[in-house]
């Protein structure tokens, strides 16, 4: 089975993605990760204004079979949280790179992105 690994994102070994759009960084978990988790039933996220530190956990994704911490690919201040997940956590399974995003942050240092996995490197990791 092959998983979707969009070319416009960078990745963490722990399966989070980050995408830069107009200076804002959107963060979510990969297609591979949502498949591993199974049906997601609950997502616990930080609040707008919270500070994320790179490689530190900032939230929790709970599925019917597991609970996983989610780690920050980059440091920054949370500017938006995907409220839709509160009532529709399944969005994370259905559209992990779109409707199922987790948070948006204002990056503290955009250079951090260069240290993340490229799409090719991430594909190699999960295959």
């Amino acid at each position, binding site marked *: 089975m092959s998983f979707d690994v969009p070319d416009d994102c960078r990745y963490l070994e722990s399966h989070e993605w980050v995408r830069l759009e107009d200076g804002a960084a959107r963060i979510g978990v990969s297609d591979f990760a949502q498949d591993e988790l199974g049906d997601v039933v609950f997502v616990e996220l930080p609040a707008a204004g919270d500070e994320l530190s790179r490689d530190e956990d900032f939230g929790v994704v709970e599925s019917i079979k597991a609970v996983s*911490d989610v780690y920050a690919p980059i440091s920054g201040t949370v500017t938006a949280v995907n409220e839709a997940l509160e009532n529709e956590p399944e969005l994370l399974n259905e559209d992990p790179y779109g409707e199922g995003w987790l948070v948006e942050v204002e990056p503290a240092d955009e250079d951090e992105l260069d240290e993340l996995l490229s799409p090719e490197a991430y594909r190699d990791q999960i295959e």
Partner: protein
Amino acid sequence: MTDHSRAAGESRGTPYAPHTPEATAAMLSAVGADSEDELFDVPESVAFDGELGIEARSERAARRHVEGLLSRNDDLTEFLGRGHYDHYVPAVVDDLASRSEFLTSYTQYQPEIAQGFLQALFEYQSMLVELTGLDVANCSMYDAATALGEAATLSQRVRSVSGDRVLVPERLREGKRAVLENYADGPGVQVETYPTDDANADVEGLEAALDDDVAMVYAENPTVRGTIEERLGEIGDLADDYDALFCLGIDPVALALLEEPASVGADVVVGEADTLGVPAAYGTGHGLFVTREEYLRQVPGRLVGAAADDSGRRAYTLTLQTREQHIRRERATSNICTNQAWLALRTAIHAAWLGPDGLLDLAESCVTEARDLAERFDAVDGVRAPVHDRHHFREFVARTDRPAEAVRADLAEAGYAVHAVGEHEVQVCVTETAADDADGLVAAFEEVA
């Protein structure tokens, strides 16, 4: 732990853990260890190297020995209270709870095999939800003190106030306070008190103690001195104004009569559920924990939920276990991964047997019995009862001219147990199980007061 007298390869254990030497050797070789000592590798510094000092006796001799010890207990008629209450437990409770389907050391949580027990626990939760007006009850904690500790740590998780203060009434049972302090120690919760006024909460004093660093306010109804709180709604509003969690301590019998916790703004309700279904005995406890739905994922302990099986029939199962230690390890909501299932079952049977009307009758008798007995105490020369100008539930404090300790000791001599709670104060608790002995208590009290 490490028994050096044991030959290598010889099995540990008892006839009840039937690991034969062959089975043990097979398991050791599978994991690549040469011996059990190597497998467990307990450092010498902490290994126990001595005799446990357990004497072997025949069953008959052991029975005689224990009966001898028990016969040394005082045979007193108890009017004690202060957290332990004796209500008559109908025979149906023992009878049903002793059925082998229920009375088993097997932890009955497997839905495939334990539907009956899970349903009983679900019923227990439902009763507490109905009695409190809140949304979610867990299927029990160790005791009221544990439940209070859990409420305090929950308040730290769900309230984003500027500090870690938890306010409790200055009159709080010592044991409860000690358990709360233990809970508070790890997460750095500061337990502080607010003043009481004639045994009830001093609401103005509470307001003075409140600030934006308070995460939880705790009140009890009835109070430790048996008085009924009259200003709970104001306490709830105050807690709300400061964005603090309002935790209310109560028990299921009191719930039948006193203000519904939801109506006074309680966010968490804790207490001792063992007032129903369990005789008062030294050391029992059965904690209840009820809260609002918004804190569902923060609830400590076990939750039974109703779901549907694959053919669409209603079926019960433990739910939201991802909160718990066996799944979330150090990030669990609580260290408690267990409950008092069999006691919860007994409480549920007792409550169901009484029904809403029976429960209300029982609660009303807790008011009238205490009021009548206090009047009789008050009629004794040199005695004032109740000391507090309040309504009372089950128990009251009486003021005596003689030192309370002497009164207590003389009453014990006469065969009655009460608490001495102050220099000149005794506390007396009366429920239907002791009401028939009230005449004897009053007669003895007239002699010694």
